[in-house]
């Protein structure tokens, strides 16, 4: 076997989404019998690259060569046919079907024109065993499995398709350490069998262990390719970053020791197995960050404050008085004055087909109406104020909000809540998938609101944001607050160390330092919105 001959080549691949350039003349070569790691920050173009390879999106220009002849894939099925199989971050399993049904879904074994269930069972058991997941029952429904098991099914499913090129996109992000070890064994065996593997991960130690070849992507271009081990972690991080963050954050106020009573306080908040005895305070004018790996209970904590969770134990206090917040309607009411900027603006924040105007005034309609009739003039005044305040770029107030860019959509969500002049603002990873310019505006807005007296609780998966924006950061691990960092203590080193629940001094910095929380998270990461 000649490992130097590329099995698959991509040349000059470009792809744009609206005005956003996801890939710009990207090149990639894949050789059989090797593991090729792809590195890059969120939004560097990795996801688009593999979507092009896997037939999910068509490139605007460029060509792909398989075995030396040009190919193009009209659909994932066509890519599969050619032997390219991808394990996506977003799971591609059908929830109502069984594990075995899912494993053979692309090409079920047939007998007399019908699916041969015995053969299907056999294939599924073999594939599960190959993936080191023989403990999963082939007849179990996928929707009943926990996330880490689903990820293993996903890997078994890919193996059952007998791929020549296997792409793993953050495939280990939801796995336990024991599963990761098994999968590594499987991947090394596949490499020995002559498969070409593309491995996308943020975990430097995984890449160090597995990869033969590395390619770094930045801003849609492949900026460097090198043999694994030939560059230090720090050099790699430099290649990935290529930009400076710090200047985009507004200055923090020099803080006098808090003497005012906290506006928002939690005492021993617990909920199922996701929140464990959380106590915290947020004062007026303060920006408190929530850190830690993704999926450690941060989202649930915000939902608990906002009245979404049932069966909560512990106390929530507003202005020092215990309150029962039974619903979001109550949380946003005048007595509490809370606002939640949700994580997924498309489903929890906006009604995409409705107009910008309607979306903006939804949360404040009760204040703008008398006896159920909306005061249009007052509505217009408030909307104009908000559009100006947040510099929302829109072709008009009466176009569907779905037509705006991601950053402007997020501004609409925020503006909608600011119209109620909330005293307590909860933010759930609000900058996910929006451009740097808009991010900067949001940081400044956040600080401005705090200066006007708002109490802000800010969850972010981006450590730079926590460092740049927060007066204090609480690091969560497994549903509990593991560490509180104040002022100058908020450093990458401290954030990462406490996020991994290890002591700061023992933490090897270097490569890990610039990694975002999401990449090391328990739950699978979601790609940035285009």
């Amino acid at each position, binding site marked *: 076997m000649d490992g130097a001959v590329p099995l698959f080549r991509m040349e000059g691949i470009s792809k744009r989404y609206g005005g956003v350039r996801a890939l710009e003349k990207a090149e990639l070569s894949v050789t059989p019998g090797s593991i090729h790691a792809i590195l890059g920050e969120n939004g560097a173009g990795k996801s688009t690259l593999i979507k092009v390879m896997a037939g999910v999106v068509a490139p605007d220009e460029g060509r792909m060569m398989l075995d030396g002849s040009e190919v193009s894939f009209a659909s994932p099925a066509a890519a599969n046919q050619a032997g390219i199989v991808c394990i996506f971050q977003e799971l591609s399993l059908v929830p109502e079907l069984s594990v075995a049904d899912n494993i053979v879904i692309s090409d079920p074994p047939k007998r007399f024109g019908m*699916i041969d269930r015995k053969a299907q069972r056999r294939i599924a058991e073999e594939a599960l065993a190959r993936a080191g997941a023989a403990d999963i029952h082939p007849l179990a429904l996928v929707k009943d499995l926990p996330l880490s098991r689903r990820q293993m099914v996903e890997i078994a499913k890919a193996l059952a398709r007998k791929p020549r090129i296997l792409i793993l996109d953050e495939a280990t992000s939801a796995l336990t350490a024991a599963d990761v070890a098994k999968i590594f064994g499987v991947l090394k065996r596949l490499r020995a069998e002559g498969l070409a593997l593309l491995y996308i991960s943020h975990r430097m130690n995984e890449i160090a262990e597995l990869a033969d070849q590395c390619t770094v992507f930045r801003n849609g271009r492949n900026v460097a390719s090198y043999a694994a081990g030939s560059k230090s972690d720090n050099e790699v991080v430099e290649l990935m970053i290529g930009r400076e963050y710090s200047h985009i954050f507004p200055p923090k106020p020099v803080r006098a020791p808090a003497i005012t009573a906290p506006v928002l306080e939690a005492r021993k908040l617990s909920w199922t197995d996701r929140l464990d005895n959380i106590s915290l305070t947020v004062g007026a004018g303060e920006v408190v960050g929530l850190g830690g790996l993704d999926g450690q209970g941060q989202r649930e904590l915000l939902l608990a404050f906002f009245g979404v969770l049932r069966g909560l134990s512990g106390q929530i206090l507003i202005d020092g008085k215990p309150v029962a917040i039974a619903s979001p309607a109550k949380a946003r009411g005048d007595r509490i004055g809370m606002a939640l900027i949700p994580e997924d603006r498309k489903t929890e924040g906006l009604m995409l087909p409705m107009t910008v105007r309607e979306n903006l005034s939804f949360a404040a309609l009760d204040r703008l109406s008398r006896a159920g009739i909306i005061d249009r003039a007052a509505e217009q005044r408030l909307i104009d104020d908000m559009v100006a305040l947040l510099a929302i770029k829109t072709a008009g107030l009466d176009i569907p909000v779905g037509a705006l860019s991601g950053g402007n959509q997020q501004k609409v969500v925020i503006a909608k809540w600011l119209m109620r002049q909330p005293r307590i603002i909860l933010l759930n990873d609000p900058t996910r998938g929006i451009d740097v310019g808009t991010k900067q505006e949001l940081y400044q807005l956040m600080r401005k609101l705090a200066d006007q007296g708002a109490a802000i609780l800010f969850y972010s998966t981006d450590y730079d944001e926590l460092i740049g924006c927060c007066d204090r950061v609480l690091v969560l691990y497994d549903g509990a607050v593991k560490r509180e960092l104040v002022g100058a203590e908020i450093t990458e080193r401290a954030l990462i160390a406490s996020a991994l629940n290890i002591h700061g001094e023992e933490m090897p910095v270097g490569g890990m330092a610039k990694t975002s929380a999401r990449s090391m998270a328990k739950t699978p990461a979601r790609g940035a919105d285009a």
Partner: protein
Amino acid sequence: MKDWRYWLAEQRGTLLAFGIFIVMFTIYTSNHPAGFTANVVQTASNKGVLLAFVAMAQTLVVITAGIDLSVGMIFLLTNCLASWLVIGTGIETAFGVVAVLGTGLLCGAINGAIVIYGRLQPIVTTIATGAVYFGIALLLRPFPGGSVNEDLADALTGRLFGVVPASLVALLAVVLVVWVPFSRSVLGRAAYAAGSSEMAAYMSGVPIRRGKFAAYALAGLLAAIGGLFLTFFTYTGEAAYASGNAYTLFSIAAVVLGGVSLFGGKGSAIGAIFGALAFRTIGDLLFVFDFDPLWQPLFQGVILLIAVSLGAFALFRVRNRLEWFL
């Protein structure tokens, strides 16, 4: 867990519908003046299979997370057509049957083509096509009338060996010839997968379009089999608007009773058949207990509400309110 437990979990909806039907039917026959006799079973069977066929048709579409509001009208259209064509010599009758079934298949295929390739919503599409199908039925039979090959009709509505209702045997045959192969075929699985998570199915390279198309087309065929049987029972064709609508709505009720999820991806036509038979038995129950027939719609509604509430119990256990909306 053992294999049988997984099987049981999968068949829960079907078994529940079966249980409801058995309980109701037992109450019915034990209070019937004639008791559990071949005659009583035959009558019940003949009444029940019509809705059972239409409910099977509805199931296929509902599995793909769609809905077919034209099944009742295909049922009427094929009834009217059969009252013209299924008559005469053996050969002529056979030709008529094939033509009627082919018409049903075509109606279903048109629905499928519009929904899948035209990308229109199933609910709007089938309201429109349903109106068209009813219009054609009305042109075929402006007034009730026509006739049918009575030998065939009597054979299929009578009893085999003096005991087993022939219509029930026909229903079983259709299950074996249409439903079982479909549910075990790649296309059937594609229909389920598309109903459960169309995106995951697409990403897995599943033939979603063909699967959904097959589901819609076969739904038309099953509704046509129902229409054929309606002709065998009544010996005539009639474009009765109210009846067509009632069958459409009852088929949805039967599907829900039978444990088929309206969100798609889950359930079986066998469950829907028991759902249909149970739904039909409600009327019979009122009869044996000497209730005024005027009470029938009210009772059917109440029973349906109770049955669907059983499926909603899981919501009480939800601890994150956002899961209500998933």
